[in-house]
């Protein structure tokens, strides 16, 4: 398990990284390396050069910008997990981060790395898709913004051009008074890639009626999927929610692998999405209404 020979460089800026990337079509960016390094060790990935962007200062930040929070691509997952802004303004991301592997993995893994890698079972892409976020990609031609729904194209496939470097992820911030969020998943063991994951964020008004609702499932389909379920305008009840989720999930094209059949994924997607939704609702209900 030694990787094939490669060269290594550590550019000082994104511009420099993009130039290096453009110069060698078999070069790869590396940040936390939590997927790429094992793939290289098994010689399933054989880049000629690694361009290490993990220490580029302009890529590590968490900042509020208008109605969303921008996170630099090389921000470590563990940093985001401990970040007060994330905890306060991005409850769904905060709930999702602890599900990523184990803490040793989150110490190295980055926010952008997980998004750019686009594993169907990955947690951060699901949060981005569920909340309808966006990413910014830099190329030698400039910067381009992609909505999450246009960005994740399939398993390990994104809209990033060959000479592009993901630089930012934008997560929408909800400003409602009563917000609840839940992230949950099922896997064979704690920390494994999820067979299915589910994310839910809801906002309720003072009467407990749903005013905003974001739902998504991961692991089940080729890319993280925002569920088209509108529950706004009424209190969320289990029966109605189950019906609407069933309809939304029924139409999805489930993946298959030796670990879980499409039927399992469909069943688990419904169960987990419903659980996530109800848990998010209950969390929001527990928050005090304006009197």
């Amino acid at each position: 398990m030694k990787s094939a020979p490669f060269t290594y460089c550590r550019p000082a800026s994104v511009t420099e990284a993009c130039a290096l990337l453009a110069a060698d079509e078999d070069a790869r960016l590396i940040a936390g390396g939590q997927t790429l390094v094992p793939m290289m060790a098994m010689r399933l990935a054989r880049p000629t050069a690694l361009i290490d962007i993990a220490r580029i200062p302009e890529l590590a930040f968490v900042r509020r910008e208008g109605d969303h929070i921008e996170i630099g691509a090389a921000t470590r997952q563990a940093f985001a997990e401990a970040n007060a802004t994330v905890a306060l303004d991005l409850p769904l991301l905060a709930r999702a981060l602890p599900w990523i592997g184990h803490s040793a993995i989150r110490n190295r893994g980055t926010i952008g790395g997980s998004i750019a890698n686009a594993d169907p079972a990955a947690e951060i892409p699901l949060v981005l898709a569920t909340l309808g976020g966006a990413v910014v990609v830099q190329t030698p031609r400039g910067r381009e913004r992609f909505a999450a729904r246009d960005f994740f194209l399939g398993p390990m496939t994104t809209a990033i051009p060959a000479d592009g470097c993901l630089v930012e992820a934008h997560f929408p911030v909800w400003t409602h008074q009563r917000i609840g969020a839940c992230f949950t998943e099922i896997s064979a063991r704690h920390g494994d890639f999820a067979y299915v994951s589910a994310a839910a964020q809801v906002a309720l008004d003072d009467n407990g009626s749903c005013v905003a609702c974001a739902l998504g499932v991961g692991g089940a389909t080729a890319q993280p999927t925002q569920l088209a379920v509108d529950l706004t305008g009424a209190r969320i009840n289990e029966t109605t929610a189950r019906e609407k989720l069933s309809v939304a999930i029924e139409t999805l094209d489930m993946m298959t692998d030796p670990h879980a059949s499409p039927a399992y994924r469909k069943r688990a997607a419904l169960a987990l999405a419903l659980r996530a939704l109800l848990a998010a609702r209950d969390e929001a209900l527990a928050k005090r209404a304006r009197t």
Partner: protein
Amino acid sequence: MNAPRAFRYISTDRRVREDRRFVVGKGKYIADIAAEAMLHVALVPSQHAAARIVSIDASRALALPGVHGVVDGAELAAACEPLMNGLDTPHVQRYPLAVGATRYMGEWVAAVVAETRAIAEDAAERVDIVYEALPHVIDAEEAYKSSSTPVHPAHGSNVLLDRVFNWGDVDEHFAASDSQLSLRVTWGRNATVPIETFGVLAQWDPWGAVLDVNASIQMPKYADQIARALRLPMNGVRVHYDVDVGGSYGVKRGIKHSVLTGYLARKLNRPVRLLEDRLENMRSGDAHGPERIFDIDVAFNSDGVINSMKMRALDNAGAYAGRAPFQLGKPIGAIVGPYRIKSVHYHAISVTTNKAVEEAVRGFGQSPTNYAIEAMVDRVAEAVGVDRIEVRRRNLIRSDEFPYLIPSGTRYDSGDYHTVVDKVLTHVNWPELVAERDRLRDEGLMAGIGVAACLEPSGGNSSFEPLLNPKNTTTTWMESCRINIDALGDINVAIHTTSSGQGHETLVATAVGEALEIDPARIRVTRPDSLSSLPGNSPVGSRMAIMLGGAAFKAAEKLKDKFRAIGAHRFGCAVDAVNYCDGNLSHGEQSLKWLDVVAIAHRHFHELPPGAEPGLEASFIMQTPTGEALPTPDGRVQMYPCHSFEFHIVLVVIDPELGKPDLRRYVIGHDCGVVINPHIVKGMTLGGIAHGIGAALLEEFVYDADGQMMSQSFMDYLLPSASEIPHVEIVHHCTPSPLTVFGQKGSGESGYLGAPAAVSGAINDAVRALGIRFEKLPIRTTAISDAIAEAKLKGRLP
């Protein structure tokens, strides 16, 4: 025999001395050992389940700077003897590298030696091999058919072993029974997958004509096998036993690796090290465990008393023979488990297939057999409508029946099974546990309780060898210990094996300390190399507490006799009249201190008894208690001497939609006789249960129909982690063995031998109301969910 003796150090709360170096990261593992100018090996694996090797062209590999050589199977076959087979199957020949044909995906076809492992891997990709795919067989039932493609055409079929035993009046007992039922259960292919993969460093000294071998080894007759394969005298192979082994439980056999590395070291005249990487370990290390289909017919009375059993066990040995078929033989020594089953028909079949080679795994085939027996007992309980524990009680051997002769010829040494069951039931508050399960069910969860009772045969002899291979007449299976008290009176004990976490240094220090009445902390334990060692058979078959502990104690007793002889000479009394206490001698008013005796032995020949040797040294080579006779013609034999007992109770809760089982409570009652070190036994038991949970729920080497291995790394071969293992409560009981020096029995396989049966039983209890039964391990989360969903669809919901 029933009450354990009082001990000074045995069974007391003493630290495990090895733990200190391991905890601070100062163990000496094979990867820590390097030689000057050492070269590294990488292997070229076959991607085919079966293929003829048309040609091998290494020229592109050899052209790479830093590459020192490439060898293939043809070269090795010309220079070496085939590796040892357990059975008399001379046409199932196995060399470290494939010769002429490859027989499983991952099999090593060529070995590349280079300055670094990375260069060796680069070069391995440049070895150009032309294959011609051949028909293959993956499934054991398919391989057993006479029409199947033989993995070894020269052998004529895939059948390595096909033997029927009839022990007792099976037909009569079936005819006289009220009922009978049949079941089939399947044990998936798993193993002990150690943290440390196998590694070996070989150095050839042409001037001394000695091959020095350091290896991460747990293997009986290791030096012998290397010597035979490499056509060296056995005193030309020096195995170093002072290498810490980072996990094994059977699988660290590495003989093909060692012969290959030894050959390369001689050929290149450079030290050569082969450290398996994880892929090599998992797909090519020849370290998979049993994969077994059991078909059972059981005859029983309406009260649940089991009279007789017919068991067919079909084992998938993989592509070569090795010792794997013997794993069908060892369980013959406990073929009725802890039960009074009067007669047994046993059909043992081992077949070759195009899978990786099976090797010894913890319990040597006993855990699969225990799983089958316990599944059978659960089915009998269900059939007669009697509580599962009550059925077990009615069948368990009673404490007053020991020594108990089972139909297959083994005498169980001792046991008090009913008491252990009662202690466990009291500990868990059985009525409350059942009520809790039912409460959980009322909450809409699927809850179940699993129960398993089983034995751990221990003190490993090799009676299965002559039983299954008539050409093998081995009845000696010794272990040795040597004690030397040096000129300053300090105690040195030599043991002659590597250890893979069993705590042998603690074991022998405790045993010698107990005998000599000296604090074990003052006793040094060393491991001479194989050229300086007494004979032994390595830590297999849960034997070392019994055999190494026994040899150490008996060597110490011999030493005490020398002390007493010196005392008797000084005191002018009979040897028997010398009192030995705390290392000092006395007779009436006369006394000799420890150091006085040391001085006499080492420096005062004039004070030694006439004819006595100077110095204070004693060795003991111990034969296993019992098992010295060859098998009877009808296949009865005394297998292992001692029998530990375990009784498991598990409460599982299954998420009815997602299928994930959650082990809410785990209790084991454990009786391994006199415990020598409680921490070691506890660690063995907890680890064994974790391993058993893995076998029950997670771990499997999966092959697809094309013979491609689907679980080559820890991505897909799922070991349980701390998150999957519940807190385990251990209920102790001690029924000493009458056959051992302290009353100890084995515990190296404890937990693993019953956990798969218990966990499986718990899941089946949880889903019983749906008409579902899981009869194949591992039972995966997704399979549970799929089965529940299907049952609900068919309207079997209660």
